[in-house]
């Protein structure tokens, strides 16, 4: 036997019947993906979301939990390919309205090692627990804002994302603790572009920093989400959201209680699209109504004033989902929880950012103590710009 033959035949996998993609093991693997998706409140495939999802609290030692039989893979969440573009230095945050937020220096100095919470919790709310009242106040302020210059045809989002202290429970994907990146995203009816920029220029393995997609026919998602056609009353907005969620065009059937689905829809609009003031106000009132009568197994908490990692003041609402085995799945009350903190601009009602966190116990009344003792934030995303632009630009060359 010559050397090359021996080397080839010494392959340990040669003597093993490697299962194919139709095997039970493969199906279990695939269903793990579905379970992972089902466990996320972020049913819309937003690239920003997935950065956070990658930092999910899944324990490295746990065995992936296949779904029960019948977990068909076919239509999992998909929408428009989110887009991020390698851009220039982060500018001031503008959320339809100017002067919101503060300029984010770039590169951002790394957070302090060991710092758990990206947010600083400035104080307990005067009326803790009344998140609905907070959202109603934000709605009033949103309604008084000037209209954005344009609502389309292309939506542009620029966000800064801070990773948390990843610690041991991570995939070992070479992501740096407290990793910081600027993500830019153009979404148009027939094209999208995504670019991710890292301050040191080093792109972690597995990350494709520039991605551009184009297609000939307008994409149903962007057509259905046209902010120019949004109604303004909570009831009409709810009908509008559900008409898309439940429509055959949507390959993402809702897998949350419908009220919760509607809440997430509203947040998705706020983080992706410029909105008319009346529509934004209507969404906040719609959210307030849902918060006042939350779906089963879900809770909303008034967190009060916060300061984010960029030093930006905000007012925060926490949405708590019970988890199962630390995953973001609906489960029994009392199981470990998953907390998503949405931060709003107190002056305009615009969404400033979000901080998802895994909690080792139930969260009923959120306090500074609760966050620091039992919740570990995954990341913090700050929306720097959300505005309409005329077109999706060509993909930049790497390194530019």
């Amino acid at each position, binding site marked *: *036997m*010559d*050397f*090359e033959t*021996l*080397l*080839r*035949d*010494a*392959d*340990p*996998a040669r003597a*093993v019947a*490697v*299962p*194919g*993609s139709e095997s039970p*093991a*493969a199906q*279990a*693997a*695939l269903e*793990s*993906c579905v379970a*992972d*998706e089902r466990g996320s409140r972020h049913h819309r*495939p937003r*690239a920003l979301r*997935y950065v956070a*999802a*990658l930092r999910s609290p*899944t324990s*490295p*030692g746990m*065995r*992936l939990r296949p779904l029960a039989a019948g977990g068909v*893979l076919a*239509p999992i*969440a*998909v929408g428009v*390919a989110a887009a991020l573009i390698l851009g220039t230095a982060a500018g001031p945050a503008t959320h339809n309205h100017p002067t919101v937020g503060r300029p984010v220096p770039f590169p951002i100095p790394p957070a302090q090692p060991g710092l758990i919470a990206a947010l600083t919790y400035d104080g307990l709310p005067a009326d803790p627990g009344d998140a609905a009242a907070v959202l109603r106040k934000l709605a009033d302020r949103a309604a008084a804002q000037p209209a954005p210059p344009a609502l389309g045809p292309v939506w542009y989002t620029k966000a800064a994302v801070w990773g948390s202290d990843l610690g041991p429970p*991570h*995939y*070992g*994907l*070479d992501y740096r603790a407290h990793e910081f990146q600027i993500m830019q995203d153009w979404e148009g009816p*027939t094209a999208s572009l*995504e670019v991710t920029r890292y301050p040191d220029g080093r792109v972690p*393995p*597995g*990350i*494709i920093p520039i*991605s551009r*997609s*184009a*297609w*000939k*026919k307008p*994409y149903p998602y962007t057509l259905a989400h046209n902010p120019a056609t949004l109604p303004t009353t909570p009831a009409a907005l709810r009908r509008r959201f559900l008409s898309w969620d439940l429509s055959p065009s949507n*390959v993402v059937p809702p897998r949350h209680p419908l009220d919760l689905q509607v809440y997430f829809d509203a947040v998705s609009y706020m983080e992706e699209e410029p909105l008319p003031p009346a529509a934004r106000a209507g969404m906040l009132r719609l959210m307030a109504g849902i918060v006042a009568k939350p779906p089963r197994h879900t809770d909303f908490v008034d967190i009060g004033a916060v300061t984010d990692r960029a030093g930006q003041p905000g007012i925060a609402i926490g949405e708590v989902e019970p988890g199962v085995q630390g995953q973001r799945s609906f489960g029994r009350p009392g199981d470990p929880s998953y907390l998503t903190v949405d931060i709003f601009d107190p002056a305009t009602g615009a969404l400033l950012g979000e901080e998802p966190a895994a909690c080792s116990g139930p969260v009923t009344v959120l306090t500074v103590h609760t966050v620091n003792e039992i919740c570990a934030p995954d990341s913090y995303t700050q929306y720097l710009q959300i505005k309409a632009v005329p077109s999706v630009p060509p993909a930049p060359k790497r390194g530019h």
Partner: protein
Amino acid sequence: MQHAGGTPEPVERFHTLYENCYQAIYAYVLRRTTAGHDDVPDIVAEVFVVAWRRRHVIPEPPAGRLWLYGVARRVLRNYERRVSRRQRLEARLREEASAAPADDLAYLSMREAVARLRPRYRETLRLVAWDGLSHTEAAAVLGCSVNAVAVTIHRAKAQLKKELSQTGPGPAVASVPSSASES
């Protein structure tokens, strides 16, 4: 679903990758799992969970397959960190105890020699010799130049031949040119 422009949507891209690469990734993980085979399905599942979460950034074929190898490489690295020294030892003892036929001894010698290679040599050699990647593809996975892969393969094979000729009990190793051709 596919966009009219011919660009697959992320979900379809994921599914295509999954169907085309599951077996290859399974074998990839199998070849590198030192703690026995029991964990391989879970590790492979973890690879695809990562790919699913990042389906929006999966490159177009054929780069998607190489990207997946990169994900598998990092998931495995993390897995290796979790496996205790004791578990690795137990697995090795199990492997050694199960080796019986003469051919298997030769293979075992080769595998052990491969395992003793320096990590960079070992991984490059496995990608080319066992995973069937071309030098160009291996360079993409490893993040190095094609020339570096060729040089590494050459050196790795030379070291293997030297080891096998000294230690046995493998078969006589013919002096075969060690420069693997591009596939």
